[in-house]
């Protein structure tokens, strides 16, 4: 095994991982639509977004998910925080629009939800952010299941319907074993397991496992649809324990790719390059040497490690500005696209 120094789950051969560079996200939701098209255009999945992009600062999807509990009480992973199930209103309801009437039959009315008068929904607070003009700020935040090394959803299920795949650590819900108890929904601190009220079972992001296995019509290995379709190609996909790959370097070597909310103690395998915004402006429009996105806010999301990560990025960027070479900057700029998706490195194991 290639992971002597890396914390991957017991009984797992290799751990799939994803790094998302938040500096490249333009909030276009192409990833969301790619995922929706592939996985959640079925009855009962209308309200689900296995991949969503939320505006930060903001309440997120589902609303206020960070205050709903879940995860572990400590890094010993011997006591779970139970958590609560978000309400349907927190997720947003399934809005029905009369596209047929307005677009085809020429009905003269506004295109708005026909079945409800919504007061909340996904991206209700899109682009609001925080701060006051001229120093307001926000950034987009794509989220999928973190396929955690210590998944509290797996532990929460009394039927062992959720499990972590031995070959690559993908966390799945066995639909045959699931009886819809929803302990996984409340137990996941990221609220990335969803209840399907039609099948009466819970379901979640599957890391597009048939694509990474090459089970599609062309027999080729593909990255997950959210990564493949991303307009700015902000995602790297591979294995955390592939020490020659960029994910290992960003996470373990340079320590600039960080898990979201490490204090939940689930050890996510989706990592983020923290956002760097232009500095603040004075009232008369002059640039001042104050960071636009407060470090305190980024610490809330990524922990104190975000300070070292941002310092490293700044230092390496300055090196390149002086005409030097930086492997880190090359990785972050995708100078070697062949390295972006490394999904076949362990194919011969």
């Amino acid at each position, binding site marked *: 095994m290639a992971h002597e120094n890396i914390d991957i789950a017991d009984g797992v051969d290799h751990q799939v991982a994803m790094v998302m560079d938040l500096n490249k996200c333009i909030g276009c939701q192409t990833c969301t639509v790619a995922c929706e098209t592939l996985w959640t255009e079925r009855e009962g999945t209308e309200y689900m977004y296995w991949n969503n992009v939320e505006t930060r600062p903001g309440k997120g999807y589902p609303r206020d998910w960070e205050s709903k509990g879940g995860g572990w009480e400590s890094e010993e992973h011997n006591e779970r925080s139970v958590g609560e199930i*978000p309400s*349907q209103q927190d997720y947003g309801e399934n809005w029905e629009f009369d596209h047929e009437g307005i677009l085809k039959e020429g009905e003269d009315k506004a295109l708005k939800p026909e079945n409800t008068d919504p007061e909340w929904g996904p991206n209700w607070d899109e682009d609001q952010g925080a701060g006051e003009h001229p120093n307001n700020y926000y950034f987009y935040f794509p989220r999928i299941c973190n396929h955690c090394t210590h998944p509290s959803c797996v532990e929460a299920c*009394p039927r062992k319907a959720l499990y972590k795949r031995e070959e690559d650590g993908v966390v799945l819900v066995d639909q045959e074993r699931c009886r819809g108890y929803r302990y996984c929904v409340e137990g996941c601190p990221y609220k990335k397991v969803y209840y399907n*009220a039609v099948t009466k079972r819970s379901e979640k992001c599957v890391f597009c496992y048939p694509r990474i296995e090459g089970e599609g019509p062309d027999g080729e290995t593909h990255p997950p649809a959210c990564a493949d379709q991303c307009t700015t190609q902000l995602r790297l996909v591979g294995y955390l324990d592939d020490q020659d790959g960029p994910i290992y370097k960003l996470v373990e070597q340079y320590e600039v790719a960080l898990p979201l909310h490490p204090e939940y103690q689930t050890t996510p395998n989706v990592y983020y390059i923290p956002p760097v915004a232009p500095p603040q402006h004075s009232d008369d429009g002059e640039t001042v040497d104050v960071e636009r996105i407060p470090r305190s806010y980024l610490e809330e999301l990524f922990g104190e490690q975000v300070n070292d990560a941002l310092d490293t990025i700044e230092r390496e960027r300055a090196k390149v500005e002086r005409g030097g070479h930086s492997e880190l900057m090359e990785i972050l700029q995708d100078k070697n696209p062949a390295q972006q998706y490394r999904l076949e490195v362990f194919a011969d194991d």
Partner: protein
Amino acid sequence: MTDASRGRRPLLVAGLLAGLLVASAALVPLIADARPAREIPIENVDQSLADPGADGWSEVPAATVPLASAPSGVPNADDTTVRAVEVEAAQSDETLFVRLRWADSSTDRETNSPRAFPDMAAIQFPVNATTQPAIAMGSQRNLVNVWQWAGTGTTQELLAGGPGSTTAFEQPQVSVEATRATIGEDDGWSVVFTRELNASVDNRTQLAADADLNVAFGIWNGENSERAGQKAVSEWYYFPFGPDEGGAPFQMILWAVAGIAIALVIAVTAISVRRAGQEGESE
């Protein structure tokens, strides 16, 4: 004390003892009729009682079964709300009807949103009718058969060999009719489970096994998000399917012997007292 009052006393004692005799003679049959604490009587009927509102149910004796939170590792396992269920059972030539009635003021019929859980009720039997498996869903060695009704209108027939192992039969043979009803002074559910006595396949409890059959009950209050191991359950009870109504004659014989012995003691005492009195007067 006068001689006259001394002479009346033996008569008074004898009268009291005679009264006791009459009272005990009247009570003995009542006590003998009382069923053992864990027995749920089964009434023989000649028509279907599948409808929880069927007139025939008024003839069927009810057992009140106390419930308590099931021991379980799921969150909030101690937080259950239903404290008792009334159980009535009736059998026709080929069919068993079990009616459960319990108070639950909220009607929860849906699982149509992330937080919606339905009210549910379940009856558990050992798969092997002569055994008493672990009360919490049996064990791998000693399986249980569970009939589970949910307020959504669905009924499942389940097989389990310990917590977390519940598996649904693909072709259930249990049918259920349920209705809201008044239970005492509260609103609640009245639910009748119906199944043929004969089991047609392996792993399905044979109800007509000519042996007493263990049975346990579970209730979930959907409003309280009760599901899985968060449920109110009973201990093992039994249906007296065994021969001779579960040994009642033996009990009757015991009571009869005791009754005769009491009567004899009273008679001997009364006679002795009277003789002693007469001897006292003649002195």
